[in-house]
């Protein structure tokens, strides 16, 4: 389906894992009313879904919407049509990242450095991940984080070396097999 020039934005989203029921949305707005961070979204969740169905891909993926999702799943627990709005939002995030959209948020960089930490270490290495994230976004903001980091160090909650995880080689194989082209 992904190679077909006729594929609509809606088709693209509906093909993602856990996003297949998007067409069953009745636009009731329970998701927007429930959303923990909706006031920050340029287009709140109900509109996000409407925009996917209307093919307004650029408008949606250039906006800050979706990146404020905190995965609290209030929308998903309450949706009367069980369309899983949080999963759709994460699916949209993956399309935006893959296609190089640059929405006005640092969450995109956070996601990328977080995921790199998994691939590089097999587990999230919190200190390394945070350090890299601040270096890539705003090194000065790292200064504001200093008291937090010192608190964590003082309470022995921020090891400065990553654990050695042999399974990281497995993760690379899995990721490679599941890359576009489908395992070959």
């Amino acid at each position, binding site marked *: 389906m992904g190679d077909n020039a006729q594929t609509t934005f809606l088709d693209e989203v509906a093909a993602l894992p856990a996003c297949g029921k998007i067409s069953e949305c009745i636009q009731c707005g329970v998701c927007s009313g429930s959303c923990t961070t909706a006031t920050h979204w340029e287009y709140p969740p109900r509109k996000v879904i409407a925009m996917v169905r209307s093919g307004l891909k650029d408008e949606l993926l250039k906006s800050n919407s979706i990146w404020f999702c905190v995965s609290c799943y209030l929308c998903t627990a309450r949706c009367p049509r069980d369309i899983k709005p949080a999963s759709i939002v994460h699916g949209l995030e993956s399309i935006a990242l893959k296609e190089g959209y640059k929405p006005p948020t640092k969450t995109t960089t956070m*996601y990328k450095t977080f995921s790199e930490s998994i691939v590089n270490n097999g587990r999230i290495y919190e200190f390394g991940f945070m350090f890299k994230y601040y270096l890539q976004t705003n090194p000065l903001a790292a200064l504001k984080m200093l008291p937090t980091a010192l608190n964590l160090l003082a309470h022995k909650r921020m090891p400065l070396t990553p654990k050695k995880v042999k399974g990281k080689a497995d993760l690379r194989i899995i990721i490679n097999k599941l890359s576009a082209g489908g395992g070959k």
Partner: protein
Amino acid sequence: MRYYAYYPGCSMEATGLPVEKSIKAIAKPLDLEFIELEDWTCCGSSPFAGVDKAKAIGITARTLAQAEKTGLDLVTPCSSCYTILQEANDLLKEDHKLAERVREALSAIGLSYNGTVKVRHIAEVLFNDVSPAGLAAKVVRPLTGLKVACYTGCQQVRPSYGFDDSEYPDWLDQMAKSLGAKPVNFPLKARCCGSSLVISESDVALDLIHRLLENAQENGAQCMVSTTCPLCFTALDVYQATVNSKFKKKFDLPVLAITQMIAIALGLDIKASALDGNVVSPQKLLKPYLSAKPQAAGVETSA
């Protein structure tokens, strides 16, 4: 003794260490044995799903396959790992095309997954397998009268996997009561702490943490009892200082993981509760309890 396959999750090796230490300490006295999966890897959490869901499910499947080999229930204390593992487990049964791709990827590393694993949050193990009554029978140092706000957070009860109410869960209140403590009304108990957004959109997350602390304090709590999730625990404990400086507040509300509280009530050595790992020190508040002489187990603990 009950046996479980144990998946701590990455944060338990860093920011969640006090919680992890207390879990290890209370397991044996509660006749539980958590057998850590060998060489486990990250579940991917929400950020990896936001980068590529199919790959995220693929790496989660490695953990499910490892757990299946043990024949035991898979238990995790992290609410994010719990939701991710549950969702992957469901999707691998529902989405046959995805399951086939994941099956191929797993076979490349010599693993397979047949969908038989039961994923459980440690909260649910404590509540259903140990139970409030079972816990109360082992209490030797009751936390009588301690007013607590019980915080379960989101991903332990949402999306719902049937353990407790998804809007206003009660398990943690019941557990705290069985230790002698007195849960206060806490309307925001299952609202979000902001999780990893505290890194990339800190204003948004700090606002959420602020609301939680304020709601707990307004309702008369002397401290918060959090679920075992290392993200919830860290948000409320470590970022309390940041909330104070941002909102010009003076919160000094200790945050205890329920497992730390259980360690105290069971009369274990002070090291077992790992209280020295808490940034907001609970020592002063707990001094009367910690210095009290342990009593015979099973004495009526309710205030």
